[in-house]
């Protein structure tokens, strides 16, 4: 097990190629949820969990059922179906997680359940399996990438939420109130994150 590579992947996914600030994924959710610290924390936990599990599921399906010579030598190359299959896996997983959580722990469901509905076909959840498939990571590397992406997203949400809570009370010119000023704030944070590039040459 190449621990160094796994650690580098986590750092790369969370800081250097941060999903929100460098890759611009998950922006709709990002701007929608980061208004309050409470919702941000809940959302990040749900996200990381869904990301990691769906990355694992998609990896298994991709490697064994879609790649050439997956199940047996001579297995056809079905990778062109990856978009459809990944979306299917994620939607099915989120739906089942929703149902299971409702039955198994209603308290947790009422706390986090609403976020599950929001993230079903979010670009950031879909991006993790797609990047894993594109880069050809092993199982552990995919998991590490998923964990790193979740952490990066959580970091982005928490930073943004703490700023936005203060922004509510600031004196902003009328055309910029709401979304435009959030974009500019995000731009400033993205500028800071540019400082991470080159931290690890991956």
């Amino acid at each position, binding site marked *: 097990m190449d621990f160094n590579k796994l650690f580098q992947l986590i750092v790369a996914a969370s800081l250097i190629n941060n999903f929100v600030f460098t890759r611009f994924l998950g922006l709709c959710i990002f701007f929608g949820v980061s208004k309050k610290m409470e919702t941000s924390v809940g959302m990040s936990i749900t996200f990381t969990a869904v990301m990691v599990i769906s990355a694992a599921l998609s990896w298994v399906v991709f490697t064994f059922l879609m790649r050439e010579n997956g199940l047996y030598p001579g297995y056809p190359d079905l990778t062109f179906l990856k*978009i459809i299959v990944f979306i299917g896996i994620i939607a099915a997983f989120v739906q089942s997680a929703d149902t299971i959580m409702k039955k198994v722990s209603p308290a947790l469901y009422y706390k986090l359940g609403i976020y599950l509905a929001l993230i079903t076909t979010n670009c950031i959840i879909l991006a993790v399996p797609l990047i894993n498939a594109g880069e050809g990571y092993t199982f552990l590397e995919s998991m590490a990438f998923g964990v790193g992406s979740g952490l990066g997203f959580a970091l982005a949400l928490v930073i943004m939420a703490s700023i936005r809570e203060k922004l509510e009370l600031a004196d902003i010119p009328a055309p910029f109130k709401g979304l435009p000023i959030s974009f500019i704030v995000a731009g400033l944070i*993205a500028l800071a994150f540019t400082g991470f590039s080159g931290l690890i040459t991956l």
Partner: protein
Amino acid sequence: MAHTHKSNWELIKNGMFSENTIFRMAISLCPSIAVTNSLKNGFFMGVSVIFVQTMVNLTVSLIRNFINPKIRIPIFMMVIAGYVSLIDMSMAAFARPIYKQIGLYIQLIVAFASIFARAEVFAVKNKIIPSVADGLGMGIGFFLAMIIISFFRELLGKGALWGFPIVSGNPLLIMILPAGGFFAVGLLMGFFNWVDAKLAERKAAQETTEKLAA
């Protein structure tokens, strides 16, 4: 929304201006910053979205009488994913250099809320031609937003447009970095809000003068 009473041309204009995906409704934002670092990328992304949006609206409208409402969400996802896969593979085959830069974002068109929302809200309840018009309008609105954002970003960030150098001297490098993307969209959104506010002011002033005159 009484879309059934609007003419097709009005539907197209609706998608381009009053319900423009990026600037008015602020959904499907992810690619708007990622691919607008050059006019070429923004152009191809916009064209892809026009294709997918129009074809999805067309297909959903064609099969709208055969869809069981309970399973409509997976069906929409399959239709959208199918067309996105189509354009993803075409681009990979015929436009390899562009695909290397925006490939991931083309694949993520499948997660666009706007395409899904139009299918759900419009295409499933309307006939074929209005649905195509609506899809075209929304797609062209997205395309215009891409062009506007990438125009500014590339001009300021590289002093070039579509790879052709236009302005000499040191460009503002930040504009083509991720941070610049956020700034560009935020400033443009603020600008559009300001324009909107001014137009509303002028309209209100006009109406009060008309009332006073009458």
